[in-house]
């Protein structure tokens, strides 16, 4: 615990002129706050004043060491002022104080005693005190302390050397879920830095947002930056610095190597060229890995919308159930409170698909890709075509995946093409040309693709109508399965519309099969996160419980983040489970007159005990399918 590691330049004032003790304390507290280790200034200052109440901390010889142990302090730090003319600090020997160090210590441990001991050890030397008083600038001040500490504690050979202002090496860690690996890598890098005697600061881009964010000043003064991330991080700030970009797992496995590479100056200088960053940066990553990274960037940003929106809608159903509202097509909006939750939840849902596409686009093509993805994703929800621009059959989340990826890569192409434009236009490229060209491109692409969605939908509807006469059970299987193919795209819509149309024509068994098909996917996934934990990431497991609620409320969208993250394994499992449930529902002659509501409308379900059984069987089948198809997460740790 070296003094100079705790005392940063911005927390020193030389030649201060406080008029009295109170002003001196104010000044020192202010300097502590500048040091950045104080979470709550008022609380910390209260601690300092409470300590002074017990007796002045001026220990004589012109030295005062105000100090406080407090939960307002995040990690130990020091502030210092020199007062050439002295200030009355109510010292034990009544002499004025001219060298003041203020200690901030967290509430646990003996840090404060150790710092006190160290300060006293070096401050006992009168010549040293004089040198400090005469220091002409802050660097000299720190240098004098450094020399003295080296003299008094010569065995600390591995002591961490602090570069002039801040840290020698900076790092950013991030993983898609942002729960475990981000922090493991940060810890490994910090440990390694300590071992090698190199100051390092690590920014963690975890699920709760970026913590310990690197400042402009720190970036300017560092030797280089290690970016150990499996998702995109803000890179433009590192323009012109030496940067190593690598996987988050390297941060955990080979931190020494990374830090040494920066210190040896071997790292390439990073040039930020807008969107091209992600293109040329990760050349050592496989293409599949990159796609996964883009996909996860979208999924993790979409997830909060799904969870919050879904719960709101479930609350709406609950309110209408309690108030005894009729369980018809308006279910969930009959009472004012229910309508509030249903509408707001619905609005959150309407952002879900565009956000998925937007963050995939952003991951691929940086900021210009965001616009392209967002609008492309929105067009996937409206289903706009050239013939019917106001919207037709939505393509749902599969359309959004398409919009995000295609939009992102199209944006990169546009930027490549723009390279040939005159240099004079460089300034307006990111603000005008990229957005304009990107918007035009994605609009044309989506409007061209959407009609196919409409054709699929029409084809399916005709197919379903033709099936009217054939086996009910097979029809139930198909409807159930369709509900969970795209969870809001043409298949889902065709099945749903078929179900509601059937209600209108008086046959209620079809709607029952449709709804059960939409309830199975979230429940199957929730069951799987409960009973087959090894198949899912931390974040997926945490959100698993919400999916019980979503599934029971017939909010199929709850399954989308899971399906989007691993479509080839999750969707087939859901389809099989949903088809099983749909078929059983038909076999048991279950009926339903409400087109929505899930478990809240079970009161109007004909044959509801068997309907519940169908749901349980279908969900368990889905869960078992997931267990078989999905790999254990452990095998793919470096992805999480």
């Amino acid at each position, binding site marked *: 615990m070296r003094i100079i590691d705790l005392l940063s330049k911005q927390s020193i004032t030389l030649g201060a002129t406080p008029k009295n003790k109170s002003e001196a304390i104010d000044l020192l507290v202010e300097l502590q706050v500048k040091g950045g280790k104080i979470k709550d200034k008022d609380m910390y200052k209260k601690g300092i004043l409470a300590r002074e109440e017990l007796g002045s901390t001026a220990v004589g010889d012109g030295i005062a060491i105000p100090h406080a142990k407090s939960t307002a302090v995040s990690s130990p730090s020091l502030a210092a002022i020199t007062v050439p003319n002295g200030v009355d600090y109510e010292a034990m020997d009544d002499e004025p104080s001219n060298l003041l160090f203020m200690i901030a210590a967290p509430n646990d441990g003996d840090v404060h*005693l150790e710092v006190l001991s160290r300060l*006293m050890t070096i*401050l*006992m030397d009168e010549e040293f005190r004089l040198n400090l008083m005469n220091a002409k600038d802050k660097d000299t001040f720190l240098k004098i302390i450094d020399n003295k500490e080296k003299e008094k504690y010569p065995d600390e050979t591995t002591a961490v050397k602090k570069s002039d202002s801040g840290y020698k090496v900076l790092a950013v860690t991030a993983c898609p879920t942002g729960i475990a690996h981000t922090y493991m890598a940060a810890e490994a890098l910090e440990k390694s830095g300590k071992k090698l005697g190199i100051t390092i600061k690590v920014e963690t881009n975890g699920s709760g947002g970026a913590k310990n964010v690197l400042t402009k000043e720190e970036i300017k003064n560092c030797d280089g930056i290690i970016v150990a991330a499996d998702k995109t991080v803000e890179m433009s700030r590192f323009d012109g610095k030496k940067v190593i970009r690598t996987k988050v797992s390297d941060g955990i496995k080979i931190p020494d190597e990374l830090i040494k590479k920066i210190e040896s100056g071997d790292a390439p200088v990073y040039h930020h060229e807008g969107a091209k960053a992600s293109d040329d940066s990760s050349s050592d990553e496989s293409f599949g890995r990159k796609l996964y990274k883009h996909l996860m960037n979208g999924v993790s940003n979409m997830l909060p919308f799904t969870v919050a929106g879904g719960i709101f809608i479930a609350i709406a159903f609950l309110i209408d159930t309690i108030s005894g509202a009729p369980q018809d097509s308006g279910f969930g909006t009959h009472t004012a409170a229910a309508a509030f939750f249903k509408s707001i939840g619905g609005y959150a849902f309407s952002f879900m698909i565009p956000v998925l596409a937007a963050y995939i686009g952003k991951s691929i093509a940086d900021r210009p890709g965001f616009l392209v993805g967002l609008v492309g994703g929105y067009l996937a929800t409206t289903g706009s075509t050239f013939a019917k621009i106001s919207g037709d059959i939505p393509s749902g989340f599969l359309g959004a995946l398409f919009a995000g990826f295609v939009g992102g890569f199209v944006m990169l192409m546009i930027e490549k093409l723009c390279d040939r434009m005159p240099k004079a236009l460089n300034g307006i490229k990111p603000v005008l040309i990229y957005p304009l060209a990107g918007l035009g491109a994605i609009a044309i692409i989506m409007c061209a693709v959407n009609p196919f969605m409409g054709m699929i939908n029409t084809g399916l509807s005709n197919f379903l109508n033709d099936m009217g006469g054939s086996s009910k059970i097979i029809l139930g299987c198909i409807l159930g399965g369709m509900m969970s193919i795209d969870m809001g795209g043409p298949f889902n819509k065709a099945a749903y519309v078929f179900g509601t149309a059937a209600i209108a024509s008086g046959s209620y068994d079809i709607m029952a099969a449709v709804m059960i098909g939409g309830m199975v996917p979230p429940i199957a996934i929730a069951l799987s996160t409960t009973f087959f934990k090894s198949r899912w990431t931390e974040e997926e497991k945490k959100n698993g419980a919400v999916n019980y609620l979503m599934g029971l409320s017939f909010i199929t969208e709850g399954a989308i983040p899971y399906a989007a993250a691993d479509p080839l394994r999750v969707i087939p499992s859901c389809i099989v489970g949903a088809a099983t449930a749909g078929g059983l529902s038909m076999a048991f002659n279950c009926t339903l007159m409400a087109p929505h509501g899930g478990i809240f409308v079970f009161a109007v379900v004909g044959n509801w005990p068997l309907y519940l059984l169908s749901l349980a069987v279908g969900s368990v089948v889905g869960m078992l399918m997931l267990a078989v198809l999905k790999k254990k997460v452990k095998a793919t740790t470096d992805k999480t």
Partner: protein
Amino acid sequence: MVSKTVKVINAQGLHMRPAGVFAKAMAAHKDCKVTLNANGKSVNGKAVMQLMAACIKYGCTVEIACDGEDEQAVLDEAAAMFESGFGE
């Protein structure tokens, strides 16, 4: 010269306040030398800065040595202060 070994029982150790109290009390005995041996260091019991520099933490064993006038009384007083945890 007389001496006695005591243990630090107050959780915060010999931080600034107890160190100050102790040094002040010892300083009153002008003709008796008070030395504390702890952590392999030997410090003047009347000098608050030296006391703090010794970094005497909770659970530390400290040998108090008094040499001079009324040395036994001074030692008893010093030991009593440690044993009472400096009133903390």
